């Protein structure tokens, strides 16, 4: 029954994006990150939905919103395994698993206070070392994804 409801919520969207498979404890972090309070069109935020993959999950549906690669990369840093569905004219035109890219430009803040990126007006660059670790291009310090702060 829950799944049907969810299916209806997604299907009912004329055009926009659905972020699915959000860990329940990350839902409001994502909502904040996307600054959902500023959206004028329909936004649905749901949490603790049944999920076959992750038992419970969160979901955000935003009408009229299509994410840029930079925005998707930002989401990937906060929640590496969410699923993004793009809908146009009631049709699913794209469905993808968001993954952490090899390089993140100007998305993450370096945790090292004496890194040049924290002291100069410049873009940060981080490289993905493994699924949980990023490395700053400039100071070379490795940082765990769970401790990452966004710029």
């Amino acid at each position, binding site marked *: 029954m829950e799944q049907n409801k969810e299916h209806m919520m997604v299907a009912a969207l004329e055009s926009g994006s659905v972020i699915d498979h959000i860990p329940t404890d990350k839902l409001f972090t994502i909502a904040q990150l996307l600054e959902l309070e500023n959206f004028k069109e329909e936004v649905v935020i749901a949490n603790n939905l049944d999920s076959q993959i992750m038992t419970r999950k969160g979901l955000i549906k935003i009408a009229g919103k299509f994410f840029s690669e930079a925005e998707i990369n930002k989401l990937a840093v906060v929640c590496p395994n969410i699923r993004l569905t793009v809908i146009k004219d009631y049709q699913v035109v794209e469905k993808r698993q968001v993954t952490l890219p090899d390089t993140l430009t100007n998305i993450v803040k370096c945790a*090292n206070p*004496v*890194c*040049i*990126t924290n*002291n*100069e*007006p*410049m873009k940060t660059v981080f490289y993905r070392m493994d699924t949980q670790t990023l490395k*700053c*291009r*400039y*100071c*070379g*310090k*490795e940082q765990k994804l769970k401790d990452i702060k966004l710029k």
Partner: protein
Amino acid sequence: MENRSIVSIADYRKDKIQYLLDMAREFETHPNRELLKGKVVATLFFEPSTRTRLSFETAANRLGAKVIGFSDPKATSSSKGETLKDTIKMVSSYADVIVMRHKLEGAALYASEVTNIPIINAGDGSNLHPSQTMLDLYSIYKTQGTLENLNIYMVGDLKYGRTVHSLLMSMRTYNPTFHFIAPKELEMPEEYKLYCKQNGIKYIEQQDFTEETIADADILYMTRVQRERFTDLMEYERVKDAYVLKANMLGKCKENMKILHPLPRVNEIEYDVDDSKHAYYFEQAQNGLYAREALICDVLGITLDEVRNDRTIIK
């Protein structure tokens, strides 16, 4: 244009390191030349470092270049809030190469990205110091005749010692065996031990620093144990004399063994060691001149062949 900057040499291949060692040797034979006549070398020391600056400026002067720059950031516009980018851009329009020291990590890499002239990293915080590494490699090569298969003993502060980290990485392709001798609080960080494992570098960790434990060393690389590095000052008091090299500890060491130290030393090598044939730290500092002459020429696109066939040598 290819950016010839030297920010790090940790990832240099063997042939490139050998090329720079060969070039340094040429400069040792003939240090005074006019190879860089008409060139301007800028030394920008956003963080004071008299020793490194004098070494670079001597290298530039002995090759006939003119030197501009500053040794104290308080006297520059960076103290007025000018960004590093703006300073580098401005100096780039005056000089052919910039040698820079900065307290922030990654500053040299960033500088190399905002200018078309080559940057030589003369130290960026506790991150990298490639010219020190180059002179260490040259000193090892010169005294041992090779960089291959050596027993390298690193002693003292292995946690914060930037020079030992850089040396460790740049030796990765030469099949060294490292011995890390340090107090618990200053032992080699995990990330470098992991680096050794990933690159198949053999290492042994120990805390005892005695005549016996260093008997098998080819290179004894001493570093300073600094009081301010300790959170527990009782621990400092306990270990501060345990990592001091004394002349009477050299009785069993190998004939070819040489003692290196990045200098300045405080008390970690007793003065009676200076007279030993194994002491090499002052020659090591002198090697820095030749290594830096090689680095400056390399970033300016001057080849080893050109150095060998140089007709500007001043005898």
